[in-house]
């Protein structure tokens, strides 16, 4: 049976691509060789940030190219890189409070609560809420809300206040993890076990597996949360 095709506009140019394609699949079907703007193809890495608009809708939406399925008449453009300011810091020299953000990311206080960042987020994170948490010094809440961020950059691209939300989010998580979160003795025990070679044989076994075997054990794995 003939595959049904849909019309899409890739950077303004019309293409017919198979129905059900993701944006990345559509780009490749249309003949684009992707060097940037594509990564893990599993929705984890955040490399394929894409802005699109669906036919009949006025809203520009953000999505991951590898996770968003094309629709008839969709207009698409990729944002492979965000040239945002990125301050460098030594985590060991910082304190987990709002003053750290005043120094490193003063633009965070420009937030007018327009919520455009939240609407752009392909991960459905309440981006504005974690920015607001940072402003009031609640780094625990900022770390929790921003946890699923994959740093695709769409929030920063849409922000009228030019805040680099994802860099603020990761700093909040780093500060929370290093200074504020409850320390877990289990982690120390596990690190000790690793150091003492408890898992060396298992790693050795994994290293020798081919792709199919590795894939099977990965998907068959059990995660025990006690």
């Amino acid at each position, binding site marked *: 049976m003939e595959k049904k095709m849909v019309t899409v506009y890739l950077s303004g140019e019309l293409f017919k691509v198979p129905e059900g394609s993701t944006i990345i699949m559509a780009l490749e079907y249309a003949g684009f060789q992707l060097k940037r703007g594509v990564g893990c193809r599993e929705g984890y890495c955040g490399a394929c940030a894409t802005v699109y608009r669906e036919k009949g809708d006025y*809203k520009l939406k953000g999505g991951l190219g590898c996770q968003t399925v094309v629709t008839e008449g969709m207009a698409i453009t990729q944002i492979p890189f965000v040239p945002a300011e990125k301050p460098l810091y030594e985590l060991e020299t910082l304190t987990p*409070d*709002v003053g750290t953000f005043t120094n490193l990311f003063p633009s965070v206080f420009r*937030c*007018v*609560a*327009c*919520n455009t960042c939240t*609407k752009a987020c392909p991960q459905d994170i*309440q981006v*504005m*809420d974690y920015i*607001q948490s940072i*402003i*009031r*010094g*609640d780094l625990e809440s900022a770390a929790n809300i921003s946890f699923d961020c994959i740093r695709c950059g769409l929030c920063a691209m849409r922000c*009228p206040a030019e805040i680099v939300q994802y860099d603020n989010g990761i700093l909040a998580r780093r500060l929370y993890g290093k200074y504020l979160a409850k320390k877990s003795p289990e982690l120390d025990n596990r690190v000790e076990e690793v150091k003492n070679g408890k898992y060396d044989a298992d790693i050795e076994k994994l290293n020798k597996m081919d792709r199919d075997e590795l894939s099977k054990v990965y998907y068959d794995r059990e995660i025990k949360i006690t």
Partner: protein
Amino acid sequence: MKIPYFPGCTMKTTAKNFEMSAIASAKKIGIEFVEIPRWNCCGVVSSLTSDDLMKHLAPVRNFLRVQEMNKAEAVSENRLLTLCSMCYNTLSLTNNRMKENADELQKINDFMHREDENYAGSVDVVHFLSILDEWGFDKLKIENPLKNLKVASYYGCMLLRPKEVGIDDPEAPQIMEKLVTAMGAESVEWDAKSRCCGSYHTVKNIDLVKKLVSGIINDARENGAEAIITSCPLCAFNLDVRQKEMAVKNSDFQTMPIFYFTQLLGIALGLEKSDLGLEFNAINPNEILKKYEKIKGAK
């Protein structure tokens, strides 16, 4: 009374002593503050540009939270209570503007299309002092009267001006003085009660702020005050922290304790000392409070 409460950023950082003493005092009186969920910064300084509505989104989002709380019957009030004078001012100015300009309110609601429900313009912004006044200062159960304590009430700018949002007469306010009297203390009349503390000059022009703060404290002292009360975290920072810096530099400088009005209220209501956050005050208030040894939990 279960009233929606907007803390604002300073209540969670530099003015924790204000928040804890206010919540504890209110509880003692019978008023429950219900912190609004997912609140955002009020915007700090109300934008005076006439055509930049974006700056008014922040207050409106907070009003929407109040609207939702009322719909869910989580509160008994359609009013939004604030403690910080600056938040009170910014939220009130935007709210008035939205109530008076249907087209601007429409534009803001359109901006939030498919995001939140529309703001109907029905919420009122209210300061804790006004709630206390409405409750009746004379009805407060004062267990520990602050006898002979001479208190100067400092309003600064944001509680009074512009007069459309002022909680009292901007030229001759009396609301805090009424509270002082109700607490059994002695209210001092003075000139500097609504003089500017220097506000955000404290970031870049510290000397100017110190000059203004000296003037305010000297005026209070000349009029016989032993302590100053305020309801603005920025005024408190300038009066308290900058004063301490002056005292450190100049050993002759005679300091005057600065309180949030809720801290003295808490003492008068007989709260535990641990509820008042006095340890966060820059100028040590313990000397002056010795007389009121009835403070529970005081060492």
